[in-house]
């Protein structure tokens, strides 16, 4: 198939499935908290709605940068779709994409000029403590399989079994990463309600819809990478079931935990990373 058509197809699929999964996450959270919750389609409808709303660009915003940074978020997650489902390329590119996502959170907050944005910008740098586990996961995968290319990792798993069973602590660290990227999670300090909406506070209307669009793609891609790297060799139905199960599990955790304060959030992630890294090295050696 034409490469461009393949890319467009995968971008649209990841947007739609990601939005429905995020809506499902809200639904499961609500049910656990004993309320009906919004319809599953709500996240998708809100994304479309925001494109029709009136947007005002605040006076304190650093002007072309304030809009360009939202386009940057979409750029990196479209690149993730290209590296992932389309070409099954290198995992190091995902690390770069994740790092740039952190930079986007930082700059979206600081370019808006509002104090809530500035606090979120600082917290985004602070929560780069979650980057360490990601890098460690990549190194552990490389030490185990000898490659960082996704297609080779899938081939390795076809021969030697799922990586979830052979390097479970790396999977746990990656799961903590997914957890920190999910809405209302205990590690979501950049978007906590104590700072209104964090770096998204001053991005209204169209820009908010644009950020939601990119976040849907991000959610789908994080789950896709987890399933490909740690389980591998799934058909599309398997991916869908896996994504629904992970989303429901994440929603379960998010419904029952508060948002930790920034210090506790970072220390929890660092502690889990330490346990994960030391444990994985021990498991690899023996």
């Amino acid at each position: 198939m034409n490469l461009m058509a393949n890319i467009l197809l995968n971008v649209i699929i990841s947007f739609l499935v990601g939005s429905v999964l995020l809506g499902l996450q809200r639904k499961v959270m609500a049910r656990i908290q004993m309320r009906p919750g919004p319809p599953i389609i709500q996240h998708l409808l809100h994304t479309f709605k925001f494109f029709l709303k009136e947007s005002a660009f605040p006076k304190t915003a650093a002007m072309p940068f304030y809009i360009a940074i939202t386009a940057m978020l979409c750029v990196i997650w479209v690149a993730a779709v290209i590296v992932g489902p389309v070409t099954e390329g290198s995992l190091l590119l995902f690390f770069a994409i994740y790092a740039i996502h952190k930079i986007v959170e930082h700059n979206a907050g600081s370019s808006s000029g509002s104090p809530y944005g500035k606090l979120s910008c600082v917290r985004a740098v602070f929560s780069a403590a979650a980057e360490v586990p990601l890098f460690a996961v990549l190194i552990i995968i490389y030490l185990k399989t000898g490659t960082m290319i996704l297609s080779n990792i899938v081939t390795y798993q076809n021969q030697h079994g799922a990586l979830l069973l052979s390097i479970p602590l790396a999977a746990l660290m990656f799961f903590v990463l997914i957890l920190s990227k999910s809405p209302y999670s205990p590690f979501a300090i950049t978007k906590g309600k104590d700072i209104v909406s964090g770096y998204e506070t001053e991005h209204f209307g169209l820009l908010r819809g644009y950020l939601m669009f990119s976040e849907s793609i991000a959610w789908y891609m994080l789950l896709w990478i987890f399933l490909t790297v740690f389980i591998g060799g799934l058909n599309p139905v398997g991916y869908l079931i896996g994504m629904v199960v992970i989303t429901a599990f994440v929603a379960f955790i998010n419904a029952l935990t508060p948002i930790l304060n920034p210090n506790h959030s970072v220390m929890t992630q660092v502690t889990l990373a330490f346990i994960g890294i030391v444990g994985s090295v021990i498991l690899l050696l023996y």
Partner: protein
Amino acid sequence: MDKLKAVSWFIFVISVASILYALIINPPNWIVYAISIVFIPLSILSFGLLSMARGKKEEEEDKRKEPFIGY
């Protein structure tokens, strides 16, 4: 048409044209990657800038003022 609408139309037309170019004429892979990474987000952004509602001109100054300026 004010400046924002003109720029948005310009970017939208260029983005859609380049995506169609990549779809119809199959250029080498690296060109397709470059076009998709740059122009898919720009097309969505410019489409949004065209579809968003605009308020009245005289209210715009009030909406852009922020309450925390001046500390």
